[in-house]
């Protein structure tokens, strides 16, 4: 994380939680790409996210070659779509996750992933923003991370398989050799705890 840029994000490095400032740093880098085509910012984002995106793709069964191709493609999209990033809506890692997810489907299935369009006249708008919405968006990732960390490993792994791999209850039961009822009750427990931590309708 060394670079000669001025770093407004660093002024907040005194915060006790380093992953919050990491997350702000990544958001700042994406914004710099958008505003000034900052190549160093891109290289720094690449160093952190490209290997993680590749790991994600391989976890979902991509070969090394496919994972390389989609990772490169996704990172190029990060550069090209940086102007669409809005830190009030999503953290940097969430935004990059959705890009990688969509590129994976676009490339491997040769089909555009259906997405909502923010300019769609039929879009039903959010209810007026609460004053602390911004804070919530900024910190949401951190809250989720903390909540996940508190789950017992058996629940955490199920959450990973259910959310990250996108397995249905039936698939989870088949792949883990757990009875369907056990899968459902463990996930419900995990979910209940996450909801408790996040105080939201996740």
């Amino acid at each position: 994380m060394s670079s000669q840029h001025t770093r407004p994000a660093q002024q907040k490095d005194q915060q006790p939680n380093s992953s919050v400032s990491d997350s702000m740093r990544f958001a700042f880098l994406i914004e710099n790409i958008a505003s000034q085509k900052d190549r160093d910012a891109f290289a720094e984002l690449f160093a952190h996210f490209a290997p993680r995106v590749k790991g994600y793709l391989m976890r979902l069964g991509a070969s090394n070659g496919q994972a390389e191709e989609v990772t490169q493609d996704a990172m190029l999209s990060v550069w090209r779509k940086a102007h669409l990033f809005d830190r009030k809506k999503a953290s940097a890692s969430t935004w990059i996750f959705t890009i990688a997810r969509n590129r994976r489907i676009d490339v491997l299935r040769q089909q555009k992933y259906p997405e909502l369009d923010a300019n769609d006249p039929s879009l039903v708008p959010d209810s007026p923003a609460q004053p602390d919405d911004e804070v919530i968006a900024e910190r949401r990732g951190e809250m989720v991370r903390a909540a996940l960390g508190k789950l017992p490993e058996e629940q955490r792994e199920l959450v990973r398989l259910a959310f990250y791999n996108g397995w249905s209850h039936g698939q989870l039961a088949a792949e883990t050799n757990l009875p369907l009822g056990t899968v459902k009750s463990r996930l419900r427990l995990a979910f209940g705890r996450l909801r408790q931590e996040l105080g939201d309708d996740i």
Partner: protein
Amino acid sequence: MGENSSEGLQNLLQQYAAGSLNHGMAVLVASYVTLSSDARHRLEELESLNGVLLNEAEPVAVSPMMLEDLQRLLDEAPAAAEEKPVEEINEDLPLPLRQFLNQPIENGKWRFAYPGVRQMTLPIGDRGEKVKLLKIKPGKAAPRHSHDGVEATLVLRGAFSDGKRLFQRGDVAVADHDVKHRPRAQGDEDCICLAVTDGGVRFAGSIAHVARDFFAG
């Protein structure tokens, strides 16, 4: 539809967030989150959970050439993005769905499905799922059937009731093989829904039962 429905909805949003839905279901969910800010908010939560998991994922080294290759590509203008003109017809329908319709749905190829119910099959689907629009006349009901897979129905215009709950524009009913439901249009306008079915649909009950539903409409 009680617990089954909320669990079914949760599964759909979760699998959309993960990118594991078939194309037809993904179109339905993208349409759903366009019409429901509540669903959109829940999806954002699920995506942020995936963002955290990505950040914590085991990194796998990428080819040392990749960054160099990318550095060369950064200045290239992207291939002219095929800007699809946004159709100005069917403007009340969500864009993820609207792009598959090239004429006002009133003029589409509606076919008889059941007394009081017409359907239009849409050319969407990559893994055997069936995607169609249903148009149910006021007071009429779609057939009672049970499903081997999952059926999700998004209300686009009008409203229907499954006997327990009213579903209005932007609401999704999810039925799995346990549920025998018979959506009946409410109010005085046609109810138009997007229905996506995974796997085969089989009719419940005896032939006589089916015939009775058929003639009763």
